[in-house]
């Protein structure tokens, strides 16, 4: 019995030790998400372009980025690009790499948002004589953002978990600390339970936000 109970009793202790990794885990996730949210905008505009070239470039980017496992992508950036062209710190490489991946996914989320907007909205903007930029800025973008928010929140949660791969290139996030704790403890699942609790606690507020936004959205759309 004690073999199982001892690690369990130590969970609280592991939990406190792992909290030190929370700021860096959050920083990488939030930064990568912001990079992706911003880069996703030109990407979705290219993807929806009436011209063949930007449309194809965007599609290839999205397909490539979604086809590569995050850990492979981070290795390419950190060990490949990082060692031969520009020197990145592990954190920079993680933010850049996860940001580029996020851009691909968020562009697709935005694209779904555009498709959800009734064509009459564009028709009305055009008939009023709004320029394309104005129509995008004042009519389409706010509606696309509103429709996309729940999916964006869901993506944020999955990004939070995906960024655990950053520890493989040396980012001192929660995952890195877990590995160290587990090695120091010489086995046992205590540190992993503690890590699981931390990740759940981090994602709950985001999930709650997604639900609230979703409910609000439905309210707005229906009478």
């Amino acid at each position, binding site marked *: 019995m004690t073999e199982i109970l001892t690690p369990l009793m130590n969970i609280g202790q592991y939990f406190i030790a792992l909290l030190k990794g929370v700021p860096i885990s959050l920083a990488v996730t939030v930064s990568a998400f912001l990079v992706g949210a911003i880069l996703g905008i030109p990407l979705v505009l290219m993807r929806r372009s009436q011209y063949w070239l930007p449309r194809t470039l965007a599609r290839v980017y999205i397909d490539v980025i979604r086809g590569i496992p995050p850990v492979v992508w981070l290795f390419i950036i950190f060990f490949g690009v990082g060692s031969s062209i520009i020197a990145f710190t592990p954190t920079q490489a993680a933010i850049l790499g996860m940001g580029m991946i996020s851009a691909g996914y968020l562009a697709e989320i935005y694209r779904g948002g555009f498709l959800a907007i009734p064509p009459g*909205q564009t028709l009305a903007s055009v*008939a*009023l*004589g*709004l320029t394309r930029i104005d129509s995008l800025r004042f009519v389409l973008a706010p509606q696309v953002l509103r429709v996309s928010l729940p999916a964006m929140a869901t993506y944020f949660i999955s990004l939070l978990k995906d960024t655990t791969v950053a520890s493989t290139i040396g980012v001192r996030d929660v995952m890195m600390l877990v590995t160290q704790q587990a090695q120091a403890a010489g086995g046992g699942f205590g540190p992993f339970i503690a890590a699981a609790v931390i990740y759940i606690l981090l994602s709950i507020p985001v999930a709650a936000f997604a639900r609230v936004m979703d409910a609000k959205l439905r309210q707005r759309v229906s*009478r």
Partner: protein
Amino acid sequence: MNADQKPARASAAAEPIVSLKNIDIRYGNFHAIKNVSLDVYRGEVVAMVGPSGAGKSTLLRAINMLETPVSGTLKVGNFSFTLDHELSQKELLLLRRSTGMVFQQFNLFPHMTVEKNISLPQMRVLGRSKEEADKVTARLLERVQLADKAKSYPARLSGGQQQRIAIARALALDPQVMLFDEPTSALDPELGLEVLAVMRELANDGMTMIVVTHEIAFAAEVADRVIVMADGEIIEQGTPEEVIRNPRLPRTQKFFRAILDRH
């Protein structure tokens, strides 16, 4: 509105304000509009009727180039285009700024208040300040009798109210001609009436209007001219008296008989 006023108003200006010449529209093999010409004069109210698929909405949308004709010439107000080249974005904007359009589905912007729906295009398209724009908006809301809804969101309004807001939004840009694309088709009859009342008032104020509609009673009462379309062509036109009560062609007779039978 009394009948003998209408022809006088229609013929007051010699120069047409909207002029379509030899307009052709094709979708692949489908010839949607076949060499149609149409002149509309300042202050004239033109009703376009005909069976669905006749090309009424397509022709209406050619006037502000929401549909792109393959050939022909198009004149709206001071802007005149020969459609032998692709129009530049700037030309298209000029054209669209001189026309106001009202859609079957209203197409208000759901994330903006009623006031912003009407004011924002004025600020962006005409460069009015917010104060100027809001003043115009207040006046127009008064005119469509929805002054109390300025701060409401469209989803809170009835279809009839939304359509009146859509009319106000188009009017706010001082168009030279108003294009109505089946403005009451998505409304139940009662709500349709309040929209028709606003349109009747607009006509009385001398606005040039082209109305695609199935409301034959409205066409008979308000229109100066009724145009009957079928299979991409204008097959008959004239005063409501001539066209609706004494149609010449068997095709037109059949169309109006079907509508009258329904009522």
